[in-house]
């Protein structure tokens, strides 16, 4: 038994596929790669695969995570190479590492901060946007309505916005970075922040890219690629199951 965690990229060509479709695509790619995959028992055997925080349809990212159980050990780099040979354009394994010990299911429950790079084309200038950012951060609450078809509810996004800044501009394109709370205990979506900034109207184009996933329980947030160290440290230390 071995468990490997992999960081992968969901790129331009794959950005319109849903989280569930990404999961199925990874499953099929791993079957094609003929890895020694562990299967669940029962009439409907399936892979022991868990994915990190979902990425909304239309967004690219290169901080994406999955964990897979194998029946026998495979070198992480070999898994990465074999998988990449079977992944369609737009999905690419970037690095992989072994999780020591054995856990029934990896849930990535500790990942609670996501960082995005947002580029806006055909919108306000960098200076104008910087002013809006300052105004937004100065507010004590940022109430948005959520719910879609269901009864709407109000959510205050202000405590969920950790950082937000304009990081560059060129021609009619402005780049922003934002670090937002994410996950099951409440999170903000980058699209919500963009809307609060009064962007995305008309034909201005907004592109979102997730650049990092972090576990804030650590003293200083670390990129997801480094989260493994903490996971390896906490092994066997009574970490709660999912």
């Amino acid at each position: 038994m071995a468990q490997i965690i992999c960081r992968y990229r969901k790129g331009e060509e794959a950005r319109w596929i849903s989280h569930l479709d990404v999961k199925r695509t990874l499953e099929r790619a791993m079957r094609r790669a003929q890895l020694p995959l562990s299967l669940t028992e029962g009439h409907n055997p399936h892979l022991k695969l868990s994915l990190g925080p979902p990425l909304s349809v239309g967004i690219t990212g290169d901080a994406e995570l999955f964990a897979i159980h194998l029946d026998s050990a495979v070198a992480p780099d070999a898994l990465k190479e074999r998988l990449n040979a079977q992944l369609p354009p737009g999905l690419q394994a970037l690095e992989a590492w072994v999780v020591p010990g054995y856990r029934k299911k990896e849930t990535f429950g500790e990942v609670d901060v996501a960082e995005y790079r947002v580029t806006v084309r055909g919108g306000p200038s960098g200076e104008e946007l910087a002013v809006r950012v300052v105004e937004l951060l100065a507010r004590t609450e940022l109430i948005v309505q959520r719910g879609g078809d269901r009864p709407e509810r109000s959510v205050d996004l202000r405590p969920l916005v950790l950082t937000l800044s304009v990081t560059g501009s060129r021609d009619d394109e402005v780049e922003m970075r934002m670090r937002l709370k994410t996950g099951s205990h409440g999170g903000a979506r980058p699209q919500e922040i963009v809307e609060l900034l009064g962007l995305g109207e008309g034909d201005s184009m907004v592109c979102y890219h997730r650049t990092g996933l972090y576990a804030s329980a650590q003293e200083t947030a670390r990129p997801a690629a480094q989260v493994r160290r903490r996971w390896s440290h906490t092994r066997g230390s009574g970490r709660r199951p999912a």
Partner: protein
Amino acid sequence: MDSGLDVILPRVQKPARYTGGEWNAVHKDRGSMRARFALCYPDTYEVGMSHLGLQVLYHVLNSHPDFLAERCFAPWPDMEQELRSRGIPLFSLESRTPLRDFDAIGITLPYELTYTNVLSMLDLAGVPVRAADRAPGDPLVIGGGPGAVNPEPVAEFFDAILIGEGEDAILEIAEAAALDDRAVALERLAQIEGMYVPSLYRYAPAGPGPRGAVTPVDGAPARIPRRFVADLDAAAFPTRQIVPFVETVHSRVTLEIMRGCGRGCRFCQARAAYAPKRHRSIETILRQAEEAVEATGYDEISLLAFTSVDYRDIEGLVSALVERFGDRGVGVALPSLRVDAFSVSLANKIQEVRKSGLTFAPESGTQRLRDVIRKRVTEDDLFAAADAAFSSGWNRLKLYFMIGLPTETDEDVGAIGDLVNRLVAFARGALGSRRGRLQIGVSVSAFVPKPHTPFQWVAQDEMETIARKQRILQQALRDRAVKLSWTDPQVSALEAAISRGDRRVGRAIEAAWRMGCTFDAWSERFDFGRWERAFGEAGIEMRDYANAALPFDAPLAWDHVDCGNEKEALRQEAEQALGGEQS
């Protein structure tokens, strides 16, 4: 990605329908190709990608060094509106090339209620919807598929329609499409066996409904023989099947084990459209299974046949597949199990890996009516099969029935309810402690008379009659374990009218499309009122096509299509079945 699409995609449902890039999709250099095909399916991506025929042709064309095939599916109305409002022409998935820039547009004709989508796809591509209006620079528009056995309702929209199977013909078609001159290419197409070039024929209506003959002008053959491959084992088959990102109707390896059906049910068009019955050998199927599982990564293999248990050694095949793939977590599914040949051991073999649904089609409630339609199944067969299924661990069954069959009485309809209720009681006894989990799905469709069957002359029940018979069943089937579903009588009426349609029905299809009808097979899109107005605009009555009994001796609009079953033989069978009720 070009920026027009970037703006559109966030606004439409399921954008991945339009972006391609799937595993095993083929990308070739367009410049070095002699003929480029856009293979189109007139329904959503999810439906079309589950159609094996499209993948077969895609594979054959792309395996050839000189030919290229890309795919295109009907855009859902939200996408259609975005494309129209921004003036973006319909494009292929692989290279996002406008359909107009292909040498040929090949369109599958899967089902009558997709025909308005044929028109919307052509129009979105910027190609005139009527063949007569096309100019030398326009791509050839070629049809084919199950619907081609009566090509008349769509005859005026196509430059050519292949009657029958396309694996071999597609390369001959590609040679024609490689010719520069449109007129010369059409001449070449007309010489291909099984190819119908509608512009070379004239229809002379002789009364209401599809009465009248389609006859050749300029020396085209009087009858077009249906094309079929002689040796299924040697026929091309795609094992590198495209693996869609999005969940499609069938997300699994599909292996065709048999084509055609030896049963001869009198209502069934497939016996004409897919004849003769041919088997693939176990060795070939196992090899294809191995290649396909390796190339796709799917965890299920579905065995495709009209009646998979009629395959000559279905038990041997299933055993071999389960033995080979079971420990890899790859399941085997038989989507079309028949009640009379079903066996306990077969059920158990499938169960070994994964439970798939069991479906039985008794079609009617009385033996008398089953004899009329020549469905050779008895009640004993059904109960024996159900017994085998329940004792092997199944709790769910699905039953298919038809109402409105020729000679049917209300007693026959009531007998369906009676049969199901007795089966439910029997199942509760057989299931014992599992009785609470019993589910019997009862799916009731309305009989649709189809060309090239012994019942092609028979009238469909009036919509009110079908609705009344549905109410009889609703009253009879009140058990909580029974889930009753039926088809909308208006949908069945339209299906019958197009199914037995002539070129005048084609005008009604065009009128309906101009009124905004598309995706008519989708209940949320179906608008019967528009269709009634469209038939009126075309100057015809829907009921003359759906609800009229046709005289045996009149020429019919599809007589020029030769499916290998002589009209006289069909007539004798009809007279035998109907016992002189129809003249």
